[in-house]
């Protein structure tokens, strides 16, 4: 029972038209998989089968890479930046025009609340294409020399937590920089990528500039190891990131990797507690905690820990978990049965290791994959729930006394993707921001994203940046022609 009752406010799904079965998008056409197999994609909130999609095998991946190579050599590398930009602007507009449909489709396939897909994911997708469209004819101003060159064919593998947004993060800069791509969406969330294939057709994007192959890990491996790929861009687990980094050893392939995280969100005693609590909630319960940069380690100054925990528990009691298609829903479904099991197991480990577990009173729907927002207190740095990425709505609370201690604990992780700091003291914000070893630092805010703002990790959270001027470097060879001295 929630604190407030609301009448149901479901978004209509009539705006989407899901086919029974989807082929692969290769060379501008939807083509049947040569290797034949198909798998089902389900709605994680209902376990309803949404569609069947092709599982690309070796010949399919090869065909996609060949299509991308031909398109690169014959068309895209000869298309001026100005013209490339026009295609990207056109794609941005098409995304805006189809925004509601894409939001609904994403929510059905992923399980995240419609409020997030409608207000965050899809608007950011359009923004990413719009931003990068403008770069296409201005690459000489990106700080990579007067005439930076594209890399060629980019293999792009994206996760299931922000399916279409991750596609945009990968495809927009690659195309702006003059590369062609073969993209593999995650096996549990292929549908918006397949809708994007149609958008490419509607935009009259030259055939083969974007190719989309659906499949699971094996398809990804085939793509990464294909000899005619020049660049690999991967977002996903650190474990797979290591395999990719090892597999490109000795090749000429470039790789950028956006991997896991275990971000500290640090609350000092002078922070405005109510705002900080909003930031904590946004930091770890946004998108069911399926966020690599989630603020999963809450570090609270000892003198205010009781106030912060009390406020946090109150606030969590107001979150609405349930039908992701309902416009009032805050917390949707866990993306898959596999991920749910992982979250359950890690939470059991947390209890077994001695941390105190708490969740608000919360009824979980009977069908689908669900996990209540969970807070662990009495957590030690040695606990697995304080060290390992859970990728779910699970928060571990630790305490500190001094800024030095906060910093030492925050940096005590092999990851380094993001961090949060809450304090009213400006000099302390800047000091913390300077010393936190993380690629993104949110001060008095958390989990904001923007196409102009570079995103990416330190240490084992990967390398390379996505977004902003710095993100372009992932898809260009710098022009190191000597500057006259």
């Amino acid at each position, binding site marked *: 029972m929630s604190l407030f009752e609301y009448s149901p406010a479901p978004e209509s799904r009539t705006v989407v038209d899901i086919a029974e079965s989807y082929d692969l998008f290769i060379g501008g056409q939807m083509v049947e998989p040569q290797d034949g197999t198909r798998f089902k994609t389900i709605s994680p909130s209902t376990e309803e089968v949404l569609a069947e999609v092709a599982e690309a095998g070796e010949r399919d991946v090869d065909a996609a890479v060949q299509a991308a190579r031909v398109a690169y050599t014959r068309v895209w590398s000869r298309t001026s930046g100005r013209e490339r930009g026009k295609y990207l602007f056109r794609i941005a507009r098409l995304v805006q025009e189809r925004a509601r449909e894409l939001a609904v489709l994403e929510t059905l396939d992923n399980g995240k609340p419609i409020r997030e897909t409608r207000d965050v994911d899809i608007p950011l997708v359009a*923004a990413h294409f719009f931003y990068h469209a403008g770069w296409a004819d201005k690459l000489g101003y990106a*700080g990579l*020399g007067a005439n930076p060159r594209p890399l060629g064919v980019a293999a792009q593998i994206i996760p299931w937590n922000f399916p279409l947004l991750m596609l945009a993060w990968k495809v927009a800069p690659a195309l702006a920089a003059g590369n062609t791509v073969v993209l593999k969406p995650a096996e549990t969330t292929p549908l918006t990528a397949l809708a994007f294939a149609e958008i490419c057709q509607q935009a009259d994007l030259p055939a083969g500039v974007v190719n989309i192959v659906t499949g699971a890990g094996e398809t990804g491996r085939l793509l990464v190891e294909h000899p005619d790929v020049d660049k690999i861009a991967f977002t996903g687990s*650190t474990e797979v*990131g*290591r*395999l990719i*980094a*090892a597999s490109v*050893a*000795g090749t000429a392939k470039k790789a950028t*990797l956006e*991997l896991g995280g275990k971000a500290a969100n640090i609350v000092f005693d002078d922070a405005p507690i109510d705002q900080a609590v909003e930031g904590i909630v946004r930091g770890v319960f946004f998108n069911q905690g399926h966020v690599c940069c989630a603020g999963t380690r809450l570090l609270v100054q000892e003198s205010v820990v009781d106030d912060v925990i009390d406020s946090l528990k109150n606030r969590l009691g107001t979150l609405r978990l349930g039908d992701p298609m309902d416009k009032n829903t805050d917390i949707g479904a866990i993306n898959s049965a596999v991920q749910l099991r992982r979250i359950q197991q890690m939470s059991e480990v947390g209890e077994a290791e001695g941390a105190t577990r708490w969740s608000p009173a919360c009824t979980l729907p009977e069908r689908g994959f669900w996990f209540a927002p969970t807070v662990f207190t009495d957590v030690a740095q040695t606990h697995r729930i304080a060290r390992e990425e859970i990728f779910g709505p699970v928060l571990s609370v630790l305490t500190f006394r001094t800024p030095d201690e906060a910093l030492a604990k925050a940096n005590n992780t*092999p990851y380094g993707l993001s961090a949060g700091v809450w304090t009213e003291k400006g000099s302390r*914000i800047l000091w913390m*921001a300077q010393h936190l070893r*993380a*690629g*993104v*630092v*949110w*001060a*008095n*805010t958390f989990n*904001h994203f*923007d196409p*102009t*703002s*570079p*995103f*990416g990790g*330190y*240490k*084992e*959270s*990967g*390398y390379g*940046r996505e977004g*902003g*001027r*710095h993100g372009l*470097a992932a898809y260009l060879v*710098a022009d*190191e022609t*000597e*500057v006259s*001295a």
Partner: protein
Amino acid sequence: MARELIRKTYKLYIGGALSRSESGRSYAVVDADGGFVAHAAQASRKDVRDAVVAARAGFHRWSGATAYNRGQVLYRVAEMMEGRREQFVAEVARSEGLTRRQATAVVDASVDRWVWYAGWTDKLAQVHGNANPVAGPFFNFSLPEPTGVVGVVAPGESSLLGLVSVVAPVLATGCSAVVLASQSRPLPAVTLAEVLATSDVPAGAVNVLTGSVAETGPPLAGHADINALDLTGVDDASLAVELERAAAQTLTRVRRPDAGEDISATPGLSRMLGVLEVKTVWHPVGT
């Protein structure tokens, strides 16, 4: 009666101290004609580990210095090298089989390279950082930061200019380095270490090991506490692959060897950019 010269003992440089290998080993270094020149210390796996520990401590000191200060220290290295010019010319000539005139050109270019990088320390953040106009009420900026400890395999042939070309950019960013010097031509590297030791470079910011790259490369590449690895000097392709794979286990940033690279050419920014991270900071704007 002629006076006999006092010969120098060539040592490792770890944590600001010139020391022999903990293994007690050394190897004979010969000149371009095959004649014996001196013994160099043969670093062990343990020396590599000690050097990484020293480099981590050195990183905190060096990256904590102001950019202005780092620039002055790098310029000081150039000053100290200039003072030892004759010694470097003699060592480079003998190591690389160059004429005195050729060796002088190499030493001059090496000194000038330090000066070039000295000037970069306080400009990198301006050239490689910027504000980001995000669509919302936030102040947002991105700045480059040193990635941490960098393992460097220095070029095998270009014993001084090649070495300076790979070490100076790492230092200019604020990173610290563990350098595996040219295996067959290590003596200019040891002399450079002596210069660094007297140039206000903090202890541990640079560590120089001589010996077998096949022996010291793997423990360096696989060390979990290095953040980046520059394989420029690895000539053996299979060793390069092995080292890159070892580095992959901790997502260490890797710069692969490039056979086409002319190390004597005027450098661009890529060596510095390769050991920088970009950090983006957000803060709300409001009343």
